[in-house]
């Protein structure tokens, strides 16, 4: 990767002011402290659970009502559209670049986050921009754009209501679609009083109105608008941006200069494919048929258009930043399919782990939830995020929710296997030895039975509760405290002992009674 000619923005691993530190913690990032805080915070748990459960339930109902049992075929089609594009990404990128340029946009190439930031700063400098309005974009968080702009003297305001509030509060988004599920109206009210000098109100409509008026004041003075892209359409050179609030419209069309930052995985072959992918995107996110505003931008304003960015005012920055490393791994089960992600957030809303961990920024990165658990280690290194692939019960809800059929559980398992091969994480060495011993026992049935009998004896001796039962096969005791690492189990629940009788003895007697002979 090329390195920038001069340093820009904050140094990579030191926590930066504002919400940045939440999504850019010191590396390697370990989840335990934030998980402990998040799971103990009852109010946070309630907010996140309510928000995500509702969206998940509505998503399922919406798809059932719209597609019924055709849903599988539609998801397969969406998956094949994205996969085909990724498998031929060079072709479609070339086509996109040619068409975008023909429409009058300027296309830039960013190998990494630093280069993308550089390009934005250069454009801001060249256009003498001092006030920038931006619409919610995960990729701009990924490249840490906002601190770089601010440091260069370009005041930059997040316009998506949730992101706007988070910015005022020095906080960070906890969900890729609905960023503020961890905050309530009183937090918003206090932030508005403190930062905007607004009167205190907890009424959501009034709070929204305060934000609307404040942001309009900024829109009218802004020189630069920055957005991400939901899709890049190769055959027309168009950029597709989807929002519900309409803030993107002001960022796209209300200033002289519009910068789009987009990961290369956003490509799709043609506008006809939007008919499939858009039908899945908003339903997967928020159970709507479409987001309120679905905008296709094809170059700057045309000669007689009354508004929109000037000729030369539309810049599209194509970003790699580790995506080609995933692209490289094609084939069945390979990481390339992770790039199909359309950032709908369905996996987050379906995930029982996210429901507990998400509100506390426990994933420690821009991309959270199940997709984050596989994307973040893939982009930033397994050694930097060793917990993410393991913080899952592999229930499979995410894979079932994904509109483009990314087999997230399979990738979690693959990453775990890769980590074992790399000797990660450090505490794993003891676990590896235990698993090796356990496997050895399982390959030697007599030793296994001896170990099982020993375990039964020890656990039953340690048990501190148990009613006893006439049927030895059902005579189970319970332990409320297990020793050593197993204590993690009994922190939260009791552990059963094996019953007094074992299966094989029963089977032997059963066989004798049935045949009078031995079994195989």
């Amino acid at each position: 990767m090329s390195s920038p000619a001069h340093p820009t923005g904050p140094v990579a691993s030191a926590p930066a002011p504002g919400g940045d530190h939440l999504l850019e913690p010191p590396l390697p990032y370990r989840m335990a402290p934030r998980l402990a805080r998040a799971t103990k915070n009852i109010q946070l748990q309630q907010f996140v659970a309510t928000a995500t459960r509702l969206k998940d339930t509505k998503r399922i109902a919406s798809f059932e009502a719209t597609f019924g049992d055709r849903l599988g075929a539609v998801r397969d089609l969406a998956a094949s559209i994205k996969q085909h594009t990724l498998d031929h990404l060079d072709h479609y990128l070339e086509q996109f670049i040619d068409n975008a340029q023909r429409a009058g946009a300027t296309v830039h190439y960013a190998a990494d986050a630093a280069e993308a930031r550089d390009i934005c700063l250069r454009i801001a400098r060249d256009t003498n921009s001092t006030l920038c309005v931006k619409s919610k974009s995960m990729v701009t968080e990924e490249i840490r754009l906002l601190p770089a702009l601010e440091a260069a003297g370009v005041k930059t305001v997040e316009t998506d209501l949730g992101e706007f509030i988070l910015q005022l509060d020095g906080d960070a988004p906890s969900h890729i679609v609905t960023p503020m599920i961890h905050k309530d109206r009183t937090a918003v009210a206090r932030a508005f009083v403190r930062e905007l000098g607004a009167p205190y109100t907890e009424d959501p409509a009034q709070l929204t109105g305060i934000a609307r008026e404040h942001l309009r004041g900024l829109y009218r003075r802004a020189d630069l608008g920055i957005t991400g892209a939901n899709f890049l359409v190769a055959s027309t050179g168009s950029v597709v941006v989807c929002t519900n609030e309409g803030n993107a419209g002001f960022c796209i069309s209300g200033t002289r200069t519009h910068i789009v930052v987009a990961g290369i995985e956003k490509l799709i072959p043609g506008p006809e494919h939007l008919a499939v992918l858009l039908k899945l995107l908003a339903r997967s996110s928020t159970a709507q048929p479409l987001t309120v505003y679905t905008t296709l931008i094809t170059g700057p304003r045309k000669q007689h258009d009354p508004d929109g960015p000037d000729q030369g005012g539309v810049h599209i920055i194509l970003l790699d930043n580790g995506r080609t490393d995933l692209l490289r791994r094609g084939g069945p089960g390979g990481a390339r399919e992770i790039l199909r992600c359309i950032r709908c957030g369905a996996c987050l809303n379906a995930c029982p782990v996210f429901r507990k961990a998400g509100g506390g920024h426990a994933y420690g990165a821009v991309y959270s939830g199940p997709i984050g658990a596989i994307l973040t280690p893939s982009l930033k290194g397994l050694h930097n995020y060793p917990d993410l692939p393991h913080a899952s019960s592999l229930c499979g809800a995410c894979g079932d929710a994904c509109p483009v059929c990314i087999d997230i559980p399979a990738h979690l398992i693959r990453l775990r296997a890769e980590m074992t091969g790399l000797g990660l994480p450090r505490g794993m060495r003891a676990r590896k030895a235990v698993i090796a011993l356990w496997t050895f026992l399982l390959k030697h049935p007599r030793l296994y039975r001896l170990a099982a009998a020993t375990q039964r004896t020890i656990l039953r001796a340690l048990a501190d509760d148990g009613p006893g039962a006439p049927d030895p096969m059902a005579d189970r005791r319970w332990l409320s405290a297990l020793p050593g690492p197993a204590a993690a189990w009994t922190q939260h629940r009791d552990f059963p002992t094996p019953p007094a009788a074992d299966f094989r003895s029963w089977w032997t007697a059963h066989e004798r009674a049935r045949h009078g002979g031995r079994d195989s």
Partner: protein
Amino acid sequence: MTTRADFLARIRDALGRRAEGTPIPPPPTDIDTARTVPRSATDLPARFATAAAAVGMTVHRTPAADLESCLAAILRAAGARRVALALTPGMHRLAAESAARAAGADILPPPSSPGFEPHYDADASITDVAGAIAETGSLVIASGPHAPRAAFLVPPVHIAIVREDQILPDLADFFPTLTPNTLPASLVLITGPSKTADIEGILITGAHGPREVHAVLTA
């Protein structure tokens, strides 16, 4: 600085491809797999009206002869004093101008320089549409000489005049028609009034864009 050639070379390398311009198989084409409104559906205005209402738009159906009075009534109910018009010259534009006068509202003069600014003074806008989608209840608005983007975004009330014959059944009927030669600089599908649910999941309309969107269906 990464050049186009560098950038693409890295991607080609990741894909294991050495030669440029290698022919590729066609992309999936069976878009109709995702169709929900049949291509042959005939009750498009009714389907559109239902879908549009479901996403929070107010739908009015009016014969062409009554268009002016319908528009005037909407403007009066909104208490509009200044109206922005974004309509190509023709019958709809004449009806909109008369409606504004009848409702006692001033019409914003055409902007003297490019930009959104004049629209911040408008209480309402009246626009036409480039199309409409029955499946989702969406309005399709294309930028053009008589179609500033600010018109459907800035004023708090947006009134769109839709001819019934502009309504397409499904997104699968709309998107394949777009070509690089015919696309405007901005093409927007509007599916309801601006909304947010960021604060505790409570739905609020009028976040940044209009809080009211009216679709006036006329023959």
